[in-house]
């Protein structure tokens, strides 16, 4: 049994390594603009992951994560523009700032369940562009014009597959590294004690309290951590786009993240990747129909997913895999498999 599990683990490790190599070679196979788009996919994946920790695992609905993304982007931009920090040093600062704000937002959120929390965060998202334009902080934020940054130069220069190691390609590698770190962090967080506590709070808050989980602490913490993830994504976004302005952080950005979470799959870490690919590339395809089409399609997808695939792409895949596995079990009809199959079936 143990050896079997180990073998499977090693197989996953190989698959992961292979995927990583593929991801590292990928930017050299496509044009610079595509690299930029892939970069945004990685960044959105981190942001969607952050929202999923809060909404998917902890059950707190946030329609205002665009605000944390904006804060992260602005923190990075102001630190680079005004204080002259190197770009990589702004990420922890953005994470810290967003963790603080998220933790504070978590306190009123404690008293607000369900719809009310959605409402309060929705109001937050609606108000954020106005706040960023506020004239008394214009000296830092640049007001309506925003802040223009310059893309960081790659530390080394070489050519691979006939393509130069450009600024975008360097940033791709950089964000990929950050994303790997963030995903591993999230994975460890979710499968550990904290993650179980978060899920318990989502599923039955009273039972969770009775089991000794400090509800206010964990809920605020979930808000803070989720905001920090999204803030890191925002900072990366600011660096990669090399421009921040209030009007790029409207309420629709928050809705975009929600679309990502729903499409990828609520309460699933890898779902963030599918969600990010969806929110980056589907609008591009839909744009060819009409300027307004992407949002109509987003809306239709949101509702359709709620009806047909409430667990998102990952949930659908899991269900398929479970069906496949249980069929294999019945065909083999082998005794050692019997004790594992009921759990599989229950999970589906």
């Amino acid at each position: 049994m143990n050896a079997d599990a180990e073998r499977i683990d090693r197989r996953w490790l190989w698959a992961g390594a292979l995927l990583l190599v593929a991801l590292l070679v990928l930017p050299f196979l496509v044009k610079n603009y595509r690299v930029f788009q892939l970069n945004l996919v990685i960044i959105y994946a981190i942001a969607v992951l952050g929202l999923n920790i809060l909404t998917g695992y902890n059950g707190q609905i946030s329609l205002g994560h665009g605000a944390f993304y904006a804060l992260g982007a602005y923190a990075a931009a102001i630190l680079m523009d005004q204080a002259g920090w190197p770009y990589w040093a702004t990420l922890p600062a953005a994470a810290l700032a967003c963790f603080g704000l998220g933790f504070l937002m978590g306190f009123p959120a404690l008293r607000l369940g369900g719809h009310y929390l959605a409402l309060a965060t929705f109001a937050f998202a609606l108000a954020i562009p106005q706040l960023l334009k506020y004239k008394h902080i214009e000296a830092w934020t640049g007001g309506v014009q925003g802040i223009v940054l310059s893309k960081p130069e790659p530390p080394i220069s070489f050519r691979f597959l006939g393509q130069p190691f450009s600024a975008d390609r360097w940033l791709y590698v950089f964000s990929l590294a950050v994303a790997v770190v963030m995903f591993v962090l999230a994975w460890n967080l979710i499968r550990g004690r904290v993650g179980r506590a978060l899920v318990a709070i989502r599923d039955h808050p009273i039972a969770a309290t009775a089991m000794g989980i400090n509800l206010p602490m964990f809920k605020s913490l979930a808000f803070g951590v989720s905001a920090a993830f999204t803030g890191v994504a925002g900072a990366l976004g600011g660096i990669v786009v090399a421009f921040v302005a209030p009007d790029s952080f409207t309420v629709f950005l928050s809705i975009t993240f929600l679309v990502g979470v729903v499409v990828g799959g609520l309460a699933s870490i890898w779902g963030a990747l599918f969600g990010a690919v969806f929110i980056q590339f589907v609008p591009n395809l839909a744009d060819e129909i009409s300027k307004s089409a992407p949002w109509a399609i987003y809306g239709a997808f949101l509702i359709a997913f709620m009806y047909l695939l409430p667990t998102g792409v990952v949930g659908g895949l899991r269900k398929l895999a479970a069906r496949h596995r249980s069929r294999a079990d019945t065909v083999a009809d082998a005794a050692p498999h019997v004790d594992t199959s009921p759990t599989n079936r229950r999970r589906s």
Partner: protein
Amino acid sequence: MEALLHQIFSGLANGCIYGSVALALVMIYQSTHHINFAQGEMATFSTFIAWALIQSGWPYWGAFAATVAISFAAGVAIQRIILRPVEKAPVLTNVIVFIGLLVIFNSLAGWIFEHTIKSFPSPFPQDSALASVYFSAHDLGSAAVMLCVLGTLYAFFRFTKIGLGMRAAALNPESARLVGIRVSWMLALGWGLAAAIGAVAGMMVAPVVYLDPNMMSGILLYGFAAALLGGIDNPWGAVLGGFIVGVLENLLGAYVIGTELKLTVALVLIVGTLTLRPNGLFGKAVVARV
């Protein structure tokens, strides 16, 4: 003093609009315990319909009546087709469906009627004897229209059998069903009414803020603030909350923080009310049984 009075009166005029949006939210909340995030977008879309009718040569009040009727029918249809299947689903599912509706209506408005800012006619004369330095004829007229709507609604709920049925369905669905009220259809009717009220509010506010697909997003926020301030289960509280929010917004905007941060006022009001007095000024405390 004159400027102050002017601010207060125009605040009251805005308050009527916020109050009616709040009322539409309260109507849906009372019967379903859901907050309709798409309310503003639906109202905007209705206003676009009215605009299209007027452009094609309809008289104002004809277009007005037709828009209210279309909105009512659309509201009923949305409840029947889209929301009924998820009536008993978790909160998150419902919020996501509402957000989906919001996005769809917003983009459809942009798609069909384009994003250019349009002017919307006011049915009230530019300079009438009733207008004064404190308020315009449109302020007065829209306030009168909104008060008419409120009066009609009150009469509907108080004196008609369907109104009574709707109240019963909202208060206690189980018992209502037992005495033969079709609860599900009452919910649909509530949606229709909310959509119609939203349409009236949209048509009244459009001459002031001009018509574009995002016209209602700020107003919806004030509507939320008004509904919460008044207590989200209390229709009269919602209307009063609307007046309070309208006046507060204008006074703070004119004298304290300037016009750029007006939306933040709504945000602070919402978060403040929810944290300090979650049931609002006039709402009942809800005790939940575990």
